């Protein structure tokens, strides 16, 4: 085991050219105008579709409604953190966060495990028909999430499913199982996508490493375990972060399943809570929910990144 651990980090370092030391006090920028021209389109779009909406949501979340009389005209006035107090008092919202965390704790490892397995199989010399399998695994990702959810909804449905022999006995849409039925849909859609990210990172590993390993007598399994996986860890980390974000923001699948299942409520996931709050309409509370959800997502992703980086440094 110790030999393999050494192998991975040392080899690329030996290959790498010596780093040029950065000159202190940079030279004058060559084409200032060009840089501006390149940055401005991005800057405008980034502000329009990212900074402004976020700013607007934060602004909305700080307002409260005031009115007089049963049909009095609503006025939005500054209310400080009133909406945030309501968010923290809202039981169903935190239950929904706990629900998606449970979901993620089970679904993300399974999905990424499968994605890794498929990527390694595609990358191994043992598999034939690689192109076909690469496409076949990826195809579900080309199906829009809503369509996938509708399709699986019908597959799960007790009387309409082509597998009604199974679905009439096991109710996949019941309160106990529907979360995992949704997990299955999400896994089905995203395994191929994550597989492709991992696979492309596998392709970037120089072939000499495998040659060297084979000369040292390593088999395919050993190569996968001791060379490939350590080298593609950054890609796996990336897919994990994407998945954590995706999990916290689950919306389309549960929204579609609301019409199939009695067990999916209007507060099933955090984003559904936001959606149904905005349909009251209570935009201010919905904005506060969104801001808290965004912060929670940020903290979780960042914590995961820190955690994996610390492991790398050891």
């Amino acid at each position, binding site marked *: 085991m110790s030999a393999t651990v050494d192998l991975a980090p040392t080899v690329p370092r030996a290959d790498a050219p010596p780093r040029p030391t950065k000159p202190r006090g940079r030279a004058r*920028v060559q084409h*200032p105008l060009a*840089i*501006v021209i390149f*940055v*401005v389109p991005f*800057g*405008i779009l980034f*502000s*329009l579709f990212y*900074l*402004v909406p976020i*700013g*607007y949501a934060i602004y909305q979340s700080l307002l*409260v*409604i*005031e*009115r007089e*009389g*049963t*049909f009095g*005209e*609503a006025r939005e006035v500054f209310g400080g953190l009133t909406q945030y107090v*309501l968010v923290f008092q809202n039981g169903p919202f935190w239950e929904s966060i706990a629900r998606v965390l449970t979901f993620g704790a089970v679904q993300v490892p399974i999905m990424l495990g499968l994605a890794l397995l498929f990527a390694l199989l595609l990358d191994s010399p043992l598999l034939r028909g690689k192109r076909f399998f690469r496409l076949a695994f990826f195809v579900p990702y080309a199906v829009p999430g809503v369509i996938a959810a509708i399709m699986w909804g*019908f597959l799960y*449905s*007790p*009387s*309409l499913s082509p597998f009604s022999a199974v679905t009439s006995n096991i109710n996949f849409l*019941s*309160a106990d199982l529907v979360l995992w039925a949704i997990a299955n849909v999400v896994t089905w859609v995203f395994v191929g996508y994550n597989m492709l990210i991992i696979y492309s990172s596998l392709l970037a590993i120089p072939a000499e490493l495998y040659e060297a390993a084979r000369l040292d007598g390593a088999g395919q399994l050993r190569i996968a375990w001791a060379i490939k996986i350590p080298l593609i860890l950054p890609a796996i980390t990336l897919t994990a972060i994407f998945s954590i974000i995706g999990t916290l923001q689950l919306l389309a699948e549960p929204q579609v399943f*609301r*019409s*199939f*299942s*009695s*067990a*999916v*409520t*209007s*507060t099933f996931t955090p984003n559904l809570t936001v959606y*149904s709050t*905005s*349909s*009251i*309409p*209570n*935009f201010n*509370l919905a904005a506060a929910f969104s801001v808290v959800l965004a912060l929670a997502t940020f903290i979780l992703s960042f914590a995961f990144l820190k955690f994996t980086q610390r492991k790398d440094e050891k």
Partner: protein
Amino acid sequence: MSRTKRAVVVALLTASTVALVGCSTGGSSASGDADAASCEPSTGQVDLTFTSWIPGIEDVVDVWNEANPDIQVAVQTGPNGNGGTYQNFFNQLKAGNAPDLGQIEYDALPNFRVQNGLTNLAACDGVLDAQNDFVDWTWGQVNFGEDDAVYAIPQDSGPMAMFYRSDLFAANNIAVPTTWAEYAVAAEQVRATGSYITNFSQSDINQFAGLVWQAGGTWFENDGTDWTVDLTSDASVTVADYWQDLIDRDLVSTNPPWTTEWDNAYNTGAAWTWTSAAWGANSIASGAPDTAGKWSVAPSPQWQAGDDASGNWGGSSTAVFTGSEHPFEAAQFALWLNTSEESLTMLNESANLYPAATDGLTLPVLQEGVEFYGGQAIYDVFADASSTVSPDFVWGPTMTQTYNDVSDGFKAAVTGQGTLLEALTSGQTSTIDALKAQSIPVKE
């Protein structure tokens, strides 16, 4: 900071300021309770936009456009109100780009009014006079019981009756129930054949409200200074306990409504009755096409034998949204749409709408037998039902939320967690909270 960096920062800041300004000017909307005093005709060609979900509404609007080259209406269709169109309306109102006209069910009108979404049409030519053209209780829904106020033009109503599979009841020698007690007995007999007497809808809370309405209950009151929320009155408890019992004994199915699964149950004879509104005639015909000719319509089962009470489910109005620049023309179109014989006939033929206009009730098309229902003149039943609908039912100002929360509870109840009554009780609490959150005065 180098010069270029500064330039970039300045450019970014400028860009975002421009964007922000763009947002704030677009977002500022006119005051909500529009002055009833100002409703002048516009000059020149007027283009109106109208959002609705009635099947076949495009053809009706085409007829208007042919006859009124100066007032052209562009119609946009969407999902039914609670299925997404109301949310779009709320978002559009917030963004200041709502259509001129929109279809809104009576139960959602207070919700839109409290969000300053509706234009008071009372000053528009012919609108106040139109009161006499409409069934009383529908007018009460659009003027909120106030003089000099008309917040929408009534379109149709949804008096409730019982659709039932007359062929199956006859073939199995089961008496068609006339009271809810008989209905429960029939439910057992139907269950013995392997089918269900009906499907209890976990998310049509407005249907449940219709049943409470029939039992003499009401959910809200508005005394002018405060709202009262009363989801758990005696009538509500009676209705909730009744259906809870049927659910507990597995005498009704609990498929989510408006799904293929649900259609399938009706299409294959797995469900035999549906207590629904006049417009429901269209839902059965389109959802269960294989059962053509096998359905009939009978009055709703009664709580006391010999009673004569009906509830109402749905029914829409045509409202003019805040921000419309042409309320006069919009009101003219809404009046034509909902009172002209031509329009009402088309709406009935394409969507089985049961008009709110009194003249509409004598339309030839409403006297005829309907083929899908074995040639029965089904609107006779709905006409009787309509005359027994209590005019006193009041809707709350956050019905979307009330429906969502009660529906969450009903969903739990049909999956064996909690009861319908518990759902109403928690809906009561959450509705009061939602009202408070919007500073709407409410009695506890």
